[in-house]
C-alpha cells in the first residue's frame, strides 16, 4: 500500500524594520560584530523591552494579506532556554495569544516529476506570532572558545505556522515560495535567504491513508528551496524505509547536510523542549484597535490573487499565465509597466514574451526579474514595434538579444540592423513574382495539386526578402498568386 506524506511548515521571517523589536538599535545586516548590540540586545540588568510599532504593523499587514484573524489583544511570553547567543536566558515570543490567528494562502503547485499538470491548492495558516531573533555563534574563533555576535539578537521575527496541509515536497516548496513572494510583495521582509531573512523548518511524517498522523521529525533551518526539496525527499524515504523494515520513527529535530544530501538527528538534550513558557511581566498585553488595522489596510498593495484574477478577466490571460506573472511583485510590476506602454489589447503578446523569452533568458543568466538587464520601458518599446507590424517575431528576437547584451532602444536597433519588415504590398508582390519566375517547374507542380510545396515558396520568398517580408502579407500574396 502507498504511503501518504504529511508536511507542515514553520517559517521565520525577519521583518524589515529599521530597529529591533524591543529597542532602538539598528537591524542593518553585515555590520561589525556587536556594534548594533545595545543594552537591551545584550540583556544588561535593569533594561526593559519597548515594543516596536513597525513590527506590529508588519504583523498586521501579513494577517490582512492572508485573510487572517488579527487578535485584538495578544500577549508576549518568555520561552526559557540556555544558549550563549540568547543572553537573557529566554526568548520573548508569543504562545497562547499570538497576534495573527488562522488564515490561508493559495499556492500554485508545479509537480516535480512525470507529466502531471500544475494545480492550485489552499494551505491553511494556523497562526503567526511576533518574537525576537537570537544572536549568532561564530565557531572556531579561538581554540576551545566560541565567539558571540549579538547584532542579530532582538531582530523582529514573524513566525508563520502552517497546518500540515502539504502532501509532497512539491507542495511544500510551492507553499514556501508563495509565502516568500507574499512577504516581499507586501514589503514586510526582504526575503534574502542567504542572509537568513527567511528560514524554514519543515515537519515531515508519513502514514498509511486513513490512519492517524505518524510521528514527525522536524528539519530545521532550511534556507533554500532546492535544499528543502532534497531534504524532504531524503527524509520521506528514510521514514518509509524505517517503518517498512519494522522500525519506529522517534520524534526528533534534524539537520539537512547539503553536501551529502542526507538528514541527521541533532544531538538533543532530554530537556530541550521544556521551555516553561509564561507571560512576560516586562510587557503589557498588545491591544490592536480596528483603527490601527484599517490604517495598515490602507497601505496594502493589490495582492497577487486579486491581480491574477484581474489579468484573466481584463486581459483574457489564462489562469496559468496570470499565476506566472504574479509569482513575484517585481514580475507583476514589469508586466504592468510594459502593458501600459503597448496597451491592454496587446497584453497577451506582453505575457507571452515575459513568460517565454524573458524568463528563459533570465534562467540562462541565473538572474531574477528584478535584475533584468532590459527595463520595462525598453521591453515595451520593442513590443510596440511588434504590435504595429514594424518587426516580425523573428526580427523581434534579434532586437531582444541586442537589447539584452548591448542595451539601447528597440527603434535604434531596428534601424541599425535593418530589421524593419517589408509590409509594402507592391514590394512583396515583386518578390513573389521573382520567386515564381525562378521556379516555374515548381509552380506547375503546385498548381497540379502538390500543396505541400507552399512551404517551399514561403521559404524562398522570405529568403529573397532577406527575412524582412511581413509573413502574414507574404502568405496572402503567395496564396493569391499561386492560385493563378
Amino acid at each position, binding site marked *: 500500500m502507498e504511503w501518504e506524506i504529511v508536511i507542515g511548515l514553520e517559517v521565520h521571517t525577519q521583518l524589515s*524594520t*529599521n*530597529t529591533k523589536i524591543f*529597542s*532602538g*538599535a*539598528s537591524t542593518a545586516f553585515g555590520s*561589525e*560584530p*556587536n*556594534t*548594533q*548590540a*545595545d*543594552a537591551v540586545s*545584550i540583556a*544588561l540588568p535593569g533594561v526593559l523591552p*519597548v*515594543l*516596536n*510599532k*513597525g*513590527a*506590529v504593523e508588519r504583523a498586521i499587514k501579513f494577517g490582512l494579506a492572508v485573510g487572517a484573524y488579527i487578535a485584538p*489583544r495578544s*500577549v508576549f*511570553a518568555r520561552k*526559557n532556554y*540556555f*544558549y*550563549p547567543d540568547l543572553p537573557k536566558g529566554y526568548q520573548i515570543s508569543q*504562545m*497562547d*495569544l499570538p497576534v495573527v490567528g488562522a488564515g490561508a494562502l493559495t499556492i500554485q503547485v508545479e509537480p516535480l516529476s512525470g507529466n502531471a499538470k500544475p494545480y492550485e491548492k489552499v494551505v491553511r495558516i494556523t497562526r503567526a506570532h511576533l518574537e525576537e531573533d537570537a544572536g549568532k*555563534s*561564530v*565557531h572556531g*574563533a*579561538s581554540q*576551545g*572558545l*566560541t*565567539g*558571540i*555576535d*549579538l547584532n542579530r539578537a532582538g531582530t523582529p521575527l514573524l513566525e508563520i505556522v502552517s497546518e500540515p496541509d502539504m502532501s509532497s515536497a512539491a507542495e511544500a516548496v510551492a507553499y514556501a515560495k508563495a509565502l516568500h513572494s507574499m512577504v516581499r510583495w507586501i514589503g514586510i521582509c526582504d526575503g534574502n535567504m542567504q542572509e537568513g531573512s527567511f528560514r524554514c523548518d519543515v515537519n515531515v511524517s508519513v502514514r498509511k491513508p486513513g490512519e492517524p498522523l505518524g510521528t514527525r521529525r522536524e528539519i530545521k533551518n532550511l534556507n533554500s528551496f532546492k535544499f528543502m526539496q532534497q531534504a524532504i525527499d531524503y527524509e520521506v524515504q528514510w521514514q518509509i524505509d524505517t517503518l517498512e523494515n519494522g522500525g519506529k520513527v522517534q520524534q526528533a529535530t534534524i539537520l539537512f547536510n547539503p553536501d551529502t544530501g542526507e538528514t541527521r538527528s*541533532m*544531538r538533543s538534550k532530554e*530537556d530541550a523542549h*521544556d521551555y*516553561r*513558557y*509564561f*507571560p512576560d*511581566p516586562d*510587557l*503589557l*498585553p*498588545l*491591544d490592536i484597535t480596528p483603527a490601527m488595522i484599517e490604517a495598515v489596510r490602507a497601505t496594502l498593495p493589490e495582492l497577487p490573487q486579486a491581480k491574477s484574477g484581474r489579468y484573466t478577466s481584463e486581459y483574457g490571460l489564462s489562469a496559468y499565465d496570470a499565476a506566472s506573472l504574479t509569482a513575484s511583485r517585481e514580475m507583476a510590476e514589469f508586466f504592468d509597466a510594459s502593458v501600459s506602454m503597448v496597451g491592454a489589447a496587446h497584453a497577451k503578446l506582453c505575457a507571452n514574451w515575459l513568460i517565454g523569452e524573458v524568463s528563459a533568458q533570465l534562467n540562462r543568466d541565473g538572474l531574477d526579474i528584478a535584475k533584468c538587464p532590459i527595463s520595462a520601458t525598453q521591453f515595451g518599446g520593442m513590443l510596440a514595434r511588434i504590435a504595429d507590424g514594424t518587426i516580425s517575431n523573428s526580427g523581434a528576437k534579434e532586437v531582444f538579444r541586442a537589447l539584452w547584451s548591448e542595451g539601447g532602444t528597440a527603434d535604434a536597433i531596428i534601424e541599425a540592423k535593418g530589421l524593419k519588415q517589408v509590409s509594402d504590398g507592391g514590394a512583396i508582390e515583386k518578390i513573389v513574382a521573382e520567386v515564381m519566375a525562378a521556379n516555374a517547374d515548381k509552380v506547375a507542380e503546385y498548381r497540379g495539386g502538390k500543396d505541400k510545396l507552399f512551404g517551399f515558396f514561403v521559404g524562398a520568398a522570405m529568403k529573397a526578402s532577406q527575412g524582412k517580408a511581413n509573413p502574414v502579407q507574404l502568405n496572402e500574396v503567395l496564396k493569391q498568386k499561386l492560385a493563378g
Partner: protein
Amino acid sequence: MITYWPYYNKVFAMSLTTQDVQKIARLARLAMNQAEIEAARAQLSGIFELIAEMQAVDTRGIAPMSHAQELSQQLREDVVTEANQREAFQAIAPQVEGGLYLVPQVIE
C-alpha cells in the same frame, strides 16, 4: 486554555517531589545539594499551596489576565535611537576578540 507550565498540575498534588525539584534545578542550571533541594522543595510547595488557594476561588465569568496591570502596551516608533557602545560594553566582558564576546566552546 493556558498551558504555560507543566508544574501547574502539581497544584492539585499540593507538594513537589525531590525529583521535581531536581528537574527544575537542572533546567535553571542550578547546582544544589541534598539539603538545598529539601529546603527548596518545602518553599516551592508552600508557593503551590498558595496558588492552590487562589485556584479554589470561583473565577467563572472573569476574563483571564496576563498582566497585573490593566494597561496595554505602549508602542515605540521604528527609529534608531541607540548608538554603538560596544567598547563600553566589552570593557566589562570576561573575554572578547575581534568584537566578539567569547564563551566556552559550544558544540551542536
